[in-house]
């Protein structure tokens, strides 16, 4: 763990060759661990004739479709060691993923998140407004993606204010008191993209109410699916929030409950960045062949963090493009990429057929 702790001091430092060597070593170990500790995972690898390893390139590592976590419980530690179960928010389908965390994995995830986000906003805790309702945290041992995100990011804040009440109404008087109390201080804002748009921005717009959050930084994630339907993209989102709420500094992030902690944050240049302990590979949605930089395809995510469930190497349902590696003007190493959206449902079915292990 000490080795990992040191690693987290700078999570954007590894250059390509060193990073590949590090990831390959860690992921081979992880695969073997899960192979020996998760029956279902072992069955899948055995069916594919792959057994527990050893793999010679990142691209060859066996990946699980992210949808699989909606179908079966995959756990690599004794159940009594599980301290938290995370679920996806399940906005687009009834089925939700269930992710089982023990103390080790949970702690790694928190440290990873802190190290990534710290690279953007530093280690000083700011007064924090959570653009959501506290009621997502009612059950303390089981969280959905929203609750888990709020808790993880809350470590960066102090004097937390939940802006919305249980009916998703803005708590105006609390907000005014908060802004008065913290006048002149930098404020950290955190929320989920759609929630912010629907319950904060659109409400303010409709009431013709302008806020002055100039001295703040907003971090948001959770995906654009619902907003793309309304023709709202990243540029529109940022412009609208600047005009209506005064927010100047906005960082979007890409991440999923199945690999919580390994988020990809948008840098000052507008690209998502892979930190040193995780990576992305783009694949052709039909053939799953690895695509070169500049071509759009399905996003595969790799992370060394998951120990209590076999979620290290996942094929997502998201489409994106990698634009380079170790070459971003912001100075951080690692691959940079953008997200296009989600693979349409019909194609997705085809895709999970490829991965039908039954």
């Amino acid at each position: 763990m000490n080795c990992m702790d040191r690693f987290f001091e700078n999570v954007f430092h590894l250059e390509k060759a060193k990073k590949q060597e590090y990831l390959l070593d860690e992921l081979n170990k992880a695969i073997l661990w899960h192979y020996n500790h998760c029956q279902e995972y072992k069955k899948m690898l055995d069916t594919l004739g792959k057994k527990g390893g050893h793999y010679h390139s990142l691209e060859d590592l066996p990946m699980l479709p992210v949808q699989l976590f909606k179908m079966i419980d995959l756990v690599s530690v004794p159940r009594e060691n599980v301290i938290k179960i995370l679920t996806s928010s399940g906005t687009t389908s009834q089925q939700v993923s269930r992710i089982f965390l023990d103390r080790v994995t949970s702690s790694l995830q928190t440290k990873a998140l802190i190290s990534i986000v710290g690279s953007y906003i530093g280690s000083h805790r700011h007064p924090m407004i959570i653009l959501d309702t506290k009621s997502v945290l009612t059950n303390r041992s089981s969280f959905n993606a929203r609750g888990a995100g709020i808790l993880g990011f809350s470590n960066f804040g102090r004097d937390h204010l939940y802006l919305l009440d249980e009916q998703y109404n803005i708590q105006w008087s609390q907000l005014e008191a908060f802004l008065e109390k913290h006048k002149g201080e930098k404020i950290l804002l955190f929320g989920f993209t759609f929630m912010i748009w629907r319950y904060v921005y659109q409400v303010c717009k409709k009431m013709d109410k302008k806020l002055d959050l100039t001295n703040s930084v907003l971090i948001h994630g959770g995906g654009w699916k619902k907003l793309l339907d309304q023709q709202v993209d990243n540029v529109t989102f940022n412009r609208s929030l600047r005009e209506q709420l005064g927010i100047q500094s906005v960082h979007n992030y890409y991440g999923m409950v199945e690999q919580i902690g390994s988020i990809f944050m948008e840098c000052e240049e507008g690209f998502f960045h892979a930190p040193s302990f995780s990576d992305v590979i783009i694949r052709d949605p039909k053939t799953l062949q690895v695509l070169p930089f500049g071509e759009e395809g399905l996003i595969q995510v790799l992370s060394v963090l998951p120990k209590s469930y076999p979620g290290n190497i996942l094929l997502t349902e998201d489409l994106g493009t990698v634009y380079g590696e170790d070459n971003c003007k912001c100075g951080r190493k690692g691959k940079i990429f953008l997200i296009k959206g989600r693979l349409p449902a019909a194609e997705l079915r085809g895709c999970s057929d490829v991965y039908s292990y039954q």
Partner: protein
Amino acid sequence: MEEKLREVFARALDIPEEMVKDELEFNSIPQWDSIGHLGLIAALDEAFGIMIETEDVIDMSSFKKAKEILAKYGVQV
């Protein structure tokens, strides 16, 4: 001072003071989970008039560790 720290822990986590020992660890009891932790940090900030940095927030993995961390902020325990 250790007595004051123990009091703050017990009050913030809503547990009896007897439970607050060096070996008490984060995520080892239901009360000291991520949510409990946020309340604990706020209580420590306030009780000792300090502002704990993010790294230390997540480093505070036991009562023993808390004493070490608070020492860095000039709180003698």
